[in-house]
């Protein structure tokens, strides 16, 4: 029971500060910009040509679901990693920097429990963030586009899929569930760095560097055969939710790897936090 109270406290702390919401405005702005650009420019012409070229009607698929899915790319590729890194890096490092960590550790709470509570709060935040973005994406797209089918084209993954509205909504929902794995994993990396004796900004930068270095290495032709060793290779699980049928073996393998990464981040972070001295 006390664990739940302590978790509630961590969530109060996390959701109580303005810093947590700073980046959120950027997400909403991005979603609206994508909607407006597609509505009022000829940006959708490319999608129309793809559909027509493959013998599909255009009208049913230039829709809320298609636009909401288009919004996912800049969000999953840039904003989400940046934002969850900021929050994950803050969880421990900001408290250490502010001096509140010393107040907490003057009490009979174990360091491992504290770390687990904070990581859990970060994970809950990541889940809520992704779910909220999914809902806002639909709402903003619906302001300008009709409800209809879903068209997804991801050339990197050889994905070209057409869904009717009900199936499309399901795929969109599951994609967001999988996007949670990306958000939590990047948050965990930043969280791990934050457990060392570093400033919050350093933890964020280190986590983002880790992601970018992985991404760059993964895309170097020399490493093509070793792609599945890289962290970022497993982060795009959400894209596979638009494949028909879903390659669950690939999803399962990547989820196992991500679970391993998260566990490693947590263990390293916990060890670093356990052995460090907490001083003013």
């Amino acid at each position, binding site marked *: 029971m006390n664990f739940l109270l302590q978790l509630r406290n961590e969530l*109060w702390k996390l959701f109580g500060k303005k810093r947590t919401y700073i980046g959120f405005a950027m997400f909403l702005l991005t979603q609206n910009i994508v909607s407006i650009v597609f509505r009022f420019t000829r940006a959708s012409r490319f999608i129309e040509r793809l559909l027509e070229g493959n013998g599909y009607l255009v009208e049913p698929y230039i829709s809320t679901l298609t636009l909401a899915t288009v919004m996912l790319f800049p969000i999953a590729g840039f904003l989400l990693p940046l934002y969850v890194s900021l929050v994950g890096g803050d969880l421990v490092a900001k408290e250490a920097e502010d001096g509140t960590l010393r107040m907490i550790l003057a009490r009979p709470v174990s360091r491992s429990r504290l770390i687990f509570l904070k990581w859990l709060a970060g994970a809950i935040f990541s889940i809520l963030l992704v779910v909220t973005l999914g809902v806002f994406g639909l709402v903003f797209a619906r302001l300008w586009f009709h409800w209809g089918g879903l068209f997804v084209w991801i050339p990197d993954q050889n994905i070209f899929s057409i869904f009717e509205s009900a199936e499309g909504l399901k795929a969109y929902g599951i994609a967001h569930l999988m996007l949670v794995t990306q958000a939590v994993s990047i948050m965990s990396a930043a969280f791990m760095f934050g457990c060392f004796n570093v400033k919050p900004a350093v933890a964020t930068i280190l986590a983002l560097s880790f992601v970018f270095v992985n991404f760059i290495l993964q895309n170097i032709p020399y490493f093509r055969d070793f792609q599945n060793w890289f962290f970022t290779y497993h982060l795009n699980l959400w894209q596979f939710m638009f494949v028909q049928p879903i390659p669950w073996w690939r999803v399962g393998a990547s989820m196992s790897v991500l679970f391993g990464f998260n566990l490693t981040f947590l263990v390293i972070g916990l060890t670093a936090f356990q052995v460090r001295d907490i001083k003013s």
Partner: protein
Amino acid sequence: MIELEKLTKRFGQRLAVDELSMTIRPGEIYGLLGHNGAGKSTTIGMILGQVWPTSGSAKVCGHEVSAHRRQALQQVGAIFESPQFYDYLSGWRNLEILATYTARTPASRIREVIDWVGLTGREQSIVKTYSHGMRARLALAQALLPNPQLLILDEPSDGLDPEGIHEMRQTVRRLHKELGLTILFSSHLLNEVEQLCTRIAVLSQGRKVFEGTVTDARSTQTWVRLRTDNFLRAAQLLFDAKLIVEHRDGKLIRLAPDSGTAAIARKLVESGFEVHEIFTEEQTLEDFYLSLMKAHPGSVRSP
């Protein structure tokens, strides 16, 4: 209540605390004195399990802190210099958050400590709007929440104005008198320590260079003011007669262990000196502290 046994902490090459041993008995107000960097906060950090000792042991309420931190800190409250809170949350919420790290705390207990520290009416305001004094009271409230037997105050008067320092001093006295708490009080403000503490330890470069009561400290090195027609000649005579061990400032002499002012006066009069004035100087804790620091080279900074 607190037992330190050869407690040592090394940060790389720097020895922050060097084989510190001390015992704080229940009901004491124990002062930890020393200049900035003397090792006071590191010692408190080790007592609270925030800093890992390099060697030695710290026991709190009979429990080894390194091995049984939970049990050791169950009835301990602590306040640090410039206490930090979640400024964007209310005072009440801050207390709720900190309390749950010890145990489930009923709202009535939070209300009780808020009343005790005099924050009633402001507990729902966000901490950002609190004055320095109010933050100090909130810090005290959070320390009192677990109904502690032991209160650790690490430089609690730091940053407070004279009025705030006075209020803090009164509060510490009240805590000791009304709640019967054992208090470990770390400070570099000699006046505070002198007025509050029943026993003190002086740290210099991580080593304990004195432990005893304030009265002990004052009487450790008693100086006697002497005014004669020729101080230097008189002092030399007394030194040769082994009645004093040293003199300074052309007016002060320090008596040898078996000497006394009557013997000094007698010797001087018998030797033909005119004695205009002779009396024992009341040594302040500051005098004692400065002489102690002089005796331990390297501790040149004033408290």
